[in-house]
């Protein structure tokens, strides 16, 4: 079958070319004659003349205005174009220099003593869950029957925990004491401690006490040790939940 759509000429579908062959000349003619590309590129003499005339008129108008201005005498001084003489340039240089000195200086001076150099830093960083406020208990049969079938867990556990209480003494004086509530909206998360305190370097006796329930005054964890702190040293007081011991790093 004679299929125009799939016919190709030198690899190009004829389907593309045919409309071009028909419409391109038409388009070119229109642009050339009707839109006036011809007159634009090769203007006929009368248009050339008219243009010249216009230009001449413009020139005359300009000259007339110039003359008028000249007659008007002193012009209003437009923007005060400051003519920059050597003095101005020097002034600018001085201004820049002063600014640069200010920036350069305060970008790392004067020094700041973040901590006295003969001190060491003790960081308390520990995360420990307090004890549950209520022990888990078995639900009775009646209680279970009242719950929807998918929620019939045999044990009822209140998830709320006690706050954790922590205190630290150095050579018998209290350094830090805090009671931290459990994290989380339900009060069921860990209690997180983070605290730093600078102490004089040297040998000290360090005592740390911690309890994780609020219904007793007894400390569950007590830790005492002599430590020697170098200047600028960081000593981290932590708690290893797996072994249940207070640690020093």
């Amino acid at each position, binding site marked *: 079958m004679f299929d125009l759509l799939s016919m190709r000429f030198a690899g190009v579908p004829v389907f593309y070319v045919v409309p071009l062959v028909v419409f391109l000349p038409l388009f070119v003619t229109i642009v050339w004659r009707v839109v006036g590309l011809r007159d634009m590129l090769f203007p006929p003499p009368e248009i050339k003349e008219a243009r010249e005339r216009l230009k001449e008129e413009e020139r005359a108008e300009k000259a007339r205005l110039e003359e008028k201005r000249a007659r008007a005498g002193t012009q209003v001084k437009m923007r005060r174009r400051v003519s920059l003489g050597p003095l101005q340039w020097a002034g600018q240089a001085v201004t820049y220099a002063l600014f640069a000195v200010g920036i350069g200086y305060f970008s790392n001076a004067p020094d700041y003593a973040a901590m006295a150099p003969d001190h060491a830093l003790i960081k308390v960083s520990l995360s420990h869950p307090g004890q549950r406020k209520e022990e888990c208990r078995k639900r009775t049969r009646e209680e279970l029957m009242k719950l929807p079938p998918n929620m019939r867990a045999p044990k009822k556990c209140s998830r709320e925990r006690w706050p954790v209480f922590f205190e630290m003494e150095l050579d018998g004086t209290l350094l830090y004491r805090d009671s931290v509530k459990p994290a989380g909206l339900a009060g069921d998360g860990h209690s997180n401690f*983070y605290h730093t305190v600078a102490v004089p370097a040297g040998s000290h006796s360090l005592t740390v006490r911690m309890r994780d329930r609020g219904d007793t005054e007894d400390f569950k964890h007590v830790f005492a040790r002599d430590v020697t702190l170098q200047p600028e040293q960081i000593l981290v007081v932590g708690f290893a939940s797996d072994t249940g011991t207070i640690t020093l790093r």
Partner: protein
Amino acid sequence: MTSIRRPLQTAFLFLDGLFDRPFGPEWNPLRQMGTLSFYLFWIVAVSGIYVYILFDTSVAGAYESVEYMTHEQWYLGGVMRSLHRYGSDAMVVTMALHLTREFIFDRYRDVRWFTWFTGVPIIWFLYVSGVSGYWLVWDQLAQYIAIASMEWLDWLGIFGKPVANNFLTRGSLGDRFFTLLLFIHIFGPLFLLFIMWIHVLRVSQPRINPPRGLAIGVLLMLTVLSLAKPAVSHPPADLGTTPTELGLDWFYMVLYPAFDAWGPGAMWALAVGVSFFVAALPWMPPLKKPKAAEVHLDFCNGCTRCFLDCPFGAVTMQPRTDGRPFEQEAVVRPDLCTACGICVGACPTSTPFRRTEKLTTGIDLPDFSLAHVREITVKAMEKARAEVPETEPHIIVFGCDHGVDPPLVERPGVRGVRLPCISMLPPSFIDFVLSRGGADGVLITGCRECDCFNRFGDRWMMERIAGERDPYLRERVPRERLRVSWAAPTDRAKLEAAVERFQGELAALPDTAEEAPRRAAGGA
């Protein structure tokens, strides 16, 4: 608030004058703090991209890579690092001066509230960007500043575990967390740029780029500083010890000593409190402004001049609604209009020559109408004439609400007319005053050059006089009878001197004396 501002304005104007001498009004850096801030951002961005190429993003390699660029490649890497640091520092200064200036000159209330309000998060993001940059060097300063920043964040208690724990001991800091810090330093500046864009969104024709002379000067200054005093690091970070003596970058870290002294809670209160206070300033108290400009369609031909000249983008052009054969009509958005009157001065129908009973124009201020302007101008002309003999020169001084109050420079034969903004004066009024024999000279004054309260008042006026902007001052107006002398409220003596000189020059003009009777006869 105004009573605090007054003396500060005087101080600022004095400094402006001082800087005008070497720099000239256009290059005066004090008037370019916003554009300079933008420009410094670009410097910091470009140098930052270069520094990033040489930067090693691992905890172990970061410090060494910064040392490499500082010492081995000092001529490029080192210079770029220094440009990055000093550019950021300079940005704090330019931003602070910029916002102080806008505050002192009362350019933050009324329609400008949006620009002011969006400036506040800019401060936050600039600090996030700067401080996070210092973390990446991973020297002792980085260690100090990172830990303090994290302790500050931890106070909020929004993270499951304290983030400061990432810096607890040698080996605590992992590459993953370090990469997060790097991300903060990349996205902080990106957000900063975004908010800077929002900041100028409602400013019509905002000036973003400083004048070329100033741009070259600043780049030169930073480069020389970078070569003379290259930015260097502290000793490498060591999480087993804590740094003691530190050379802080006080531009970004001024609050850290306060943090050490007062703790995180107080610093949050301070930061959030001050931010809310500053953000609320535009309404403490709100600026009482006159009624917005109104369009009178009968006189509007949709020429778009008011739209092009309004410094606050309050005029929009919309399709014609009254059936007259024009395509567009001007529409004013009252919430953006400050009633500066610049549009009135731009409208081609604003001419005092018309003989209608009531002077109307395409766009007018209800509280300070063009008819009122003509009335006070005519009165001033009559007064000036009554004061001195016809043969002596009479001058009308047109001024504005924000420069020297024109009546302050009045003397026999000299009368002042005060407008909301000098560009409210249509150029035809100058023609009117001079050609109707009202006066022998017109003196135009207003805020100092490039410092117009209404942003473009001085510029539009000069362009209209020069014939570079519609509506222009007619050719027939004798330029020797027109003077322009910009003067801030503190420049009264200077303006008085200009008036006196002008009077002398007018008296010396050959035709003043001869023409006087004819001028008077043709009177208004």
